[in-house]
């Protein structure tokens, strides 16, 4: 059936190419900054990192590296201008899916013994069980691997499958470089009760806006670290992880569905240094991790096995890294981060958001930065017992608003200028503003705000991120 004018052509001049994917193969593609690739599934089951694509609608992707995988075979067409695209026969999805099923079994067992959960949630869950008066806890999985080993991808797949099974996993992103549902430089946690927005795959979807969204937005708890690598200030990072863990524990104590579903934790890719292992220890302790999954690094696996095997309650596993994982070079990482900042203020292509520029007095803004690690005196140079001195130093320092802040991204904290530095250091993030201009003569600054409002009279925390529109 083809009436003239009724066949809908894609936005690109390139005619759509149809691809038949055989079962258990994947089509990998890479879309550069500001270019677009559209994909439309014609038939079969296609998924992107575990999230299934509907047959019919057109999906639009920009600035991303993705793969469309199929268990049963599928046919789709795409158009646009990808940087690269190819079909891969090799896939690690089998073991990733098995990992999901093993976790799902633990969730089922947790649900079975949790009375509270049974009382409140069972009406909507098909698996009817009888409670035994205890609190069931779902598995808390920590995913560890070197940089660019596909940790986030695995986390997304596990999350998507869990959501598909009507679970509501607490996803914890501890990699400040990537930023989940937020900007780079943050660590965050959100429970996923609805599917991920695969068109905003890099940021795991979208956080809430003032209006409706095509995919339900997620609500993260966000903490601002301010730079890419935890090693930039390990003490501040650990403090934030502890604070986030505290919030998660409190949440899971009351949110039965999330507790049964457990946590999926995407760790930062630092493992080489001694600091790395210390950090893993801290995370395992803070978040009561009971499953550690290592990706694509035999040494890491064996080290962790030695470390945690004696403690029987922690399972240590290894999975292969996917061949589809590509080295994110620095410039590519920057363009993804740029994209995330842009989409925070202006929304993804599908849902345009309005941001607002306001002018305010410089004095109206209280800005802190995290204290430099180098301010700490190297512990070797200190006499025994001086650790306390280190602890006394505050994690954040107040700074003057100066032209140095031009183009900076500032985190708006849930803290007011009167709060102590300790409170400020562990305050969660309310949102972000972008400093457009600072006029030292007139003592005025121009700020880009995500929503129409007065300049919040909060504390602002500056990190190492700048943005130029």
């Amino acid at each position: 059936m083809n009436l003239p004018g009724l066949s809908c052509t894609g936005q690109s001049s390139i005619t759509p190419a149809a691809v038949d994917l055989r079962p258990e193969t994947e089509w990998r593609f890479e879309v550069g900054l500001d270019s677009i690739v559209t994909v439309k599934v014609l038939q079969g089951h296609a998924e992107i990192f575990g999230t299934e694509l509907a047959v019919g609608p057109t999906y639009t992707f920009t600035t991303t590296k993705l793969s469309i995988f199929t268990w049963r075979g599928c046919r789709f067409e795409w158009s646009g201008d990808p940087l690269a695209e190819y079909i891969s026969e090799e896939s690690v999805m089998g073991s990733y899916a098995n990992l999901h099923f093993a976790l799902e079994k633990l969730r089922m067992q947790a649900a079975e013994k949790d009375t509270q959960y049974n009382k409140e949630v069972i009406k909507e869950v098909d698996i009817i069980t009888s409670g035994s008066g205890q609190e069931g806890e779902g598995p808390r999985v920590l995913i560890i691997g070197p940089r660019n080993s596909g940790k986030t991808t695995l986390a997304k797949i596990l999350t998507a499958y869990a959501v598909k099974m009507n679970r509501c996993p607490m996803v914890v992103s501890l990699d400040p470089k990537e930023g989940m549902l937020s900007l780079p430089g943050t660590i965050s946690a959100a429970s996923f009760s609805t599917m991920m927005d695969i068109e905003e795959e890099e940021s795991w979807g979208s956080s809430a806006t003032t209006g409706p969204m095509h995919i339900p937005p997620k609500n993260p708890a966000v903490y601002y670290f301010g730079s890419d690598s935890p090693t930039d200030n390990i003490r501040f990072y650990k403090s934030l992880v502890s604070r986030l863990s505290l919030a998660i524990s409190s949440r899971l104590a009351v949110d039965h569905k999330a507790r049964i579903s457990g946590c999926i934790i995407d760790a930062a890719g630092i493992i080489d240094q001694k600091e790395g292992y210390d950090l893993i220890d801290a995370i395992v302790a803070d978040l009561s991790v009971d499953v550690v999954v290592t990706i694509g690094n035999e040494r890491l696996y064996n080290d962790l096995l030695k470390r945690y095997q004696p403690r029987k309650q922690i399972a240590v596993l290894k999975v292969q890294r996917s061949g589809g994982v590509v080295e994110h070079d620095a410039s590519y990482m920057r363009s993804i981060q740029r994209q995330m900042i842009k989409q925070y203020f202006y929304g993804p292509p599908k849902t345009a958001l309005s941001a607002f520029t306001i002018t305010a007095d410089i004095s109206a803004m209280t800005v802190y930065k995290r204290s430099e690690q180098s301010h700490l005196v190297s512990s070797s140079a200190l006499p025994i017992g001086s650790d306390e001195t280190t602890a006394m130093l505050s994690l954040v320092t107040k700074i003057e608003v100066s032209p140095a802040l031009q183009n900076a991204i500032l985190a708006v904290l849930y803290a007011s200028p009167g709060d102590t530095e300790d409170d400020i250091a562990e305050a969660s993030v309310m949102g972000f503003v972008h400093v457009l201009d600072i006029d030292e003569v007139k003592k005025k600054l121009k700020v880009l705000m995500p929503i129409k409002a007065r300049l919040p009279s909060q504390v602002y925390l500056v990190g190492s991120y700048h943005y130029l529109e």
Partner: protein
Amino acid sequence: MVSATELEAIRQDYVTSLDDLTFNSRPIITNLTIIAQENIQAAEVITRAIEEHISKCAPSSKLPALYLLDSICKNVGSPYTLLFGRNLYRTFTDAYTLVNDGIRRKMHELFQTWKQPSMTTGQSLFNQEPLRRIENYLMKAQSALMELQQHEHRQRRPSPGAYAQAYHQQSPTPPQQQHVTPASHAADHTYGQTAPSYAQTISISDATYRRQDSDYSPPPAGQPTVTTGSLLAEISNLIQFTTEKLYDNPTDADLKTQLSALSQLHGILRTSSLPAEQLATIKSRIDVLSSELHRNRKRKAEIESLARPSPKRAWNSPSVVNESATPVWTPPQSQPPVPQPQAYVPSSLSSVNIQSIQPDLLASVVQVLTQPQFGAALGTPVPVSIAPGLAAAPAPTITDPSAIFASLKAAGLLSMDSISASGSNGAQKRVRDIFSKLLSPDIELSNKFLQKSRPDLVALLYDSLPLQCSTCGRRFADTDCDRIKRDAHLDWHFRVNKRLREDTRGQSRSWYLDEESWIKFTDGDDSKEIEDSSGSSFRVSGSTVSNKDKEDVSHKYIPAPKDPSVINTPCPICKEKFKSVWNEKAEDWVWMNAVRAENDKIYHATCLRDAENVIL
């Protein structure tokens, strides 16, 4: 995403194609249905185009356009069912007022098919709300017509013939309109007849969206296997038939009772799985009822053909065509083994007799359920009275549906306890069985298991969740509770699309929740939002907290100020003045919905709240 210009192009083309739909043509309807399916991303504009077409086109073209609506909804399903459902009442009733009686009758029939639960999903085509409103509307229209007719009736010869004539003379449209319709009769005859086959050819997404029916399997001829599906279909037919009767006799309490009994039985069958032997027993009873119905109709047809002169036959025939023209997909095994094509006597004719017969039938169902020698009950000759006003039935033995259930229960046919206790059906159990596979000991957190190839487990991700949303790809299990969720989910899509379309102000990124709110926050499943849809806008924007605030602040008040300069100062936000009202609790004059802000200015509490919501 489709750009606005592309949408406009699709709309234009569709509008042009719609202009060809001036008569009932199956090829055109099929084509337009396929176009609607292929351009599902433009569902909204297509829906609007069709709705506009229905409201603007000539009365004679309205029916084919409604058939198109029907075809799209039945074959493509979501999102069209949702989109059309929104304005269904207006679309349908506006058309109804403008067409002649022949078309109205067909619209009745069309409407019946909408109400009838789908064989595959067990749900009616559209939401209950518009259907209920249309039904009320039709009932009122019918009873108004009946009154008029009875009035006529008394003035004329009290015979069915005159009655039928009166019915037609009441037609608000000029007589020649009647002659326009035969052409479309013939045409929609084909549409109706072939409906099942075209439904199969183009319902690609249909198959995935609707449940792959496992309960329903048409039994081989001559060897009836009873399944819940077949039984449901049969009961649906009876329900449909009874409903038809009911809108001819809207005041008939017996019919109403029977209808509610049937629909309850339907409901029970749909939501619970009964053992095969119980199904067989119910089936045999239902068979008796329906064959009695048909025998009855047949006999009546005979009586009528004897009692009336031949011209009545001519009057009769188009209605027979009507019957087959109804785009109902009637399952073969539910068709009664009655050879006569005029098995369905036009309801207006049968109305006189049927009143006296229905309670009897109802009673006979109950009787046969309780006593084995049910043949006797049916053998009783039914007194046929042609005289109007003598419709008073032989005292119905049991017409109360609860009594029917009591007797069903007594006969061991239904175990209500088991039904209400478990609330689970076969499908639900199957899903549970599949998932219990996960508990097998070989599934464990070990490197060995992770390396295994377990394609059987992948089925849990797909096969156990056969219902899929065609908009976002979300999957649902084929269970009652998941089907409710699915519907709520589709409603959610609809609401979001509607709001995105209507809300031209644009939106912005919200602030994140603070720690405390985040800890207390429970992520709403989109399908759950329906329960508190009053606050859906707040839920969608992700904050339950602000939702609560909304309820609280409007009760705030301050004592009415005495200072005249303050009294005349309006709210700085909305620029409206405050009104003083006497408050019993405060025993003073107060300004309701008012707060004094830090800057000592007085605002409407709701205005300030809204402003602060934006600010914070």
